[in-house]
């Protein structure tokens, strides 16, 4: 356990020192800061636009950070040969992988926390210092954090056997696919013209692939007024879903990494 914690701590330190991540974070924060002024461009209510825009910025920035942070993690260790000094100590490969993963999501969490704080500040300020709508708004970043942890697990898994550039597009592609598949599956399911075979195939894909759209819960937050029954139960279920899927990916990653020559 101590090995995992120390690898995770080192990974957080590395992540915070990486300039590229800081630049992405800075851009995200800048967008959050200017978001209150952009509502005037739109015919929609300023609060609606502000909520949508801020949550969109956090989600998009976090996704880029999650991928950039994790795709280079293992390959860099191997390329710089620093992995030898670690694995020559009494550290198992699975401990190394899990430590790296936990470190990266911890670093990601810190960056998301910063962006969320900026969002809350500007939202509170735009709402005439009214804090009442903020707790509702905070649900989305929490769900996005689980979403990004899942994305990081995908990237960590791929990083055990593919090059960083390929991993970037693979993880990014899977994120897009996983975000699009729920609405796509919904359309197929509701269409009477879709043959049953296609529906069954879509069901298999929708059940097997990591489903990132489950965490896109921003619609009722952006457009309040909708009554959602058992909202807490849903958040609990998607959290468990995320943990289970992360478990699958890490186990698969450990399996591949363990068989790999470094």
């Amino acid at each position: 356990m101590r090995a995992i914690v120390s690898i995770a701590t080192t990974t957080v330190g590395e992540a915070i020192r990486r300039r590229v991540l800081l630049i992405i974070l800075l851009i995200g924060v800048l967008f959050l800061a200017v978001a209150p002024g952009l509502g005037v461009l739109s015919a929609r209510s300023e609060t609606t636009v502000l909520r949508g825009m801020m949550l969109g910025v956090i989600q998009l920035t976090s996704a880029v950070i999650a991928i950039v942070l994790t795709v280079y993690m293992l390959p860099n260790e191997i390329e710089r040969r620093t992995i030898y000094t670690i694995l020559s100590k009494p550290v198992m490969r699975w401990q190394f992988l899990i430590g790296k993963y936990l470190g990266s999501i911890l670093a990601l969490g810190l960056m998301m926390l910063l962006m969320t704080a900026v969002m809350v500040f500007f939202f509170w300020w735009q709402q005439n210092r009214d804090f009442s709508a903020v707790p509702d708004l905070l649900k989305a970043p929490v769900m996005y954090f689980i979403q990004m942890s899942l994305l990081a697990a995908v990237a960590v898994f791929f990083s055990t056997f593919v090059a960083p550039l390929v991993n970037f597009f693979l993880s990014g592609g899977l994120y897009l696919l996983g975000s699009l598949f729920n609405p796509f599956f919904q359309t197929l399911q509701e269409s009477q013209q879709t043959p049953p075979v296609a529906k069954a195939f879509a069901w298999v894909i929708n059940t097997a692939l990591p489903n990132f759209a489950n965490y896109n819960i921003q619609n009722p937050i952006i457009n309040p007024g909708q009554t959602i029954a058992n909202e807490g139960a849903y958040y609990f279920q998607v959290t468990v879903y995320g943990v289970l899927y992360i478990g699958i990916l890490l186990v698969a990653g450990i399996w591949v990494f363990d068989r790999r020559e470094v």
Partner: protein
Amino acid sequence: MNMKNNTSALKPILIGVAAACFAGQAFLQSQFIFPKWKQDFSPGRGKMVANGLSPDQMLFALTGFREMVAGILWVRADSFFDSGNYDAILPIIRLVTILDPRQIDVYATGMWHIGYNFTDEEQRSDRRYIPSALALGKEGCRSNPETYEMFFETGWMWYHKIDDDYSNAVKWFEEAQKRPDMLPARKNLLSNAYERNGQVDKSLDTLFSLYDSARKTFGEDKSVFGNRQNRDTLERKLDTTLVRMGQRGWFASKEGRPLTGYDVNPPFDVNFSCKVSVVDRRVLKFEGTWGVKPVGTRIRAVLKDADYPNAEPAGMLWDSSNDVNLDPPRDKTFMQEQLFVKNTRFNKKVDMSKDPTMYPFSGDKYVLELYYNARSAPPHIQDKFGWNGEGMTDKNWLNTEIRPGQRVIYATLPITKDMILRRGEWRDKVPVVKTSNFKEDTSKSYNSGDSFVIDLPALRSDDRKQ
């Protein structure tokens, strides 16, 4: 350098853990998460793929920028409204409603735009679009079920634009009424819809209930002008309805008393006849008689393909579409016009020559329909004809079948493409189709240009000399 740690002993455990995690996530996803997500969190409620959004539009639809982009697009649409470029607005409306299905203004404006704004040179609406407008309204209701607005707008389309099938107006207004945010003044329209639908008792009940509520609201705050106005409006409407119910023999009829002496008895023969001449290519002239002297009668004239899809007598199945199809049947023709009656005759030229896309005349056979229902008539005409046409008759064209529960006037005249386009044997002679009872009127007053002088007798007088 091989620095592999030996985890082969853990292999069965790892496989077991992974399999258990996979089964668990699959169960959660299919049984709990997806159904709940679909119900409460889906951004486009299943419309994004079905309606052919391109991948980049879909991406926008899935990020938090949807509302922003939709709002900017809607601002852009406004400039198209200003320049009259109505065709360009349609795809924007579709895109905005998909991106931001909670933007009720776009649904309401889009529905009105599709239903009302596509007109020919003579300001006749292109009614082929109405099923799409209604489909957009229904979609707006599904996307915004917690507010009354789209239910009201959809009901209004039935009430005002279609102006024939009031049962659907009632259905949507009732749905609107169930929503707590419905404006008090708008609630009054439900009683009008009941009345037009022939449910006079229900109309009266609704008025009483609204009046009680308005009186209570006024009692709570007398300083608000709107409260007083609403109460007074309802009081007047209630009085008028009660008078009309008495005058039109509604109570007598309910009590089984003879209707002798009531305005609706005996039924008045409207003496309808019609002649349609093709005076030029794609130009029809409607002439005919309607033996009712007071102004206010408008006879509906419809010209449509004999095989028009989902056709109904003097209309179509307006509610036939659940998909917002912005491309109506462009190879079909559906023209609808109102023929205004004055001095017991009507005479109107309908020029379809300037709008070939709206009136393509691509089929060979067409049907002309002339239709009148008392439910859409103004109150002073209804005073004689009753709510369902019980005070109206016609020895040739009374129809009690096409609109169950109503007595309407309905005549059909077949016409061909060759006749409308004045080609073939009709190149040099004027095609004419007419009802069997049509007689030419050669009276000077009618043809000399004096017809703008309108006689205004009362239908209630027993003097029915024409």
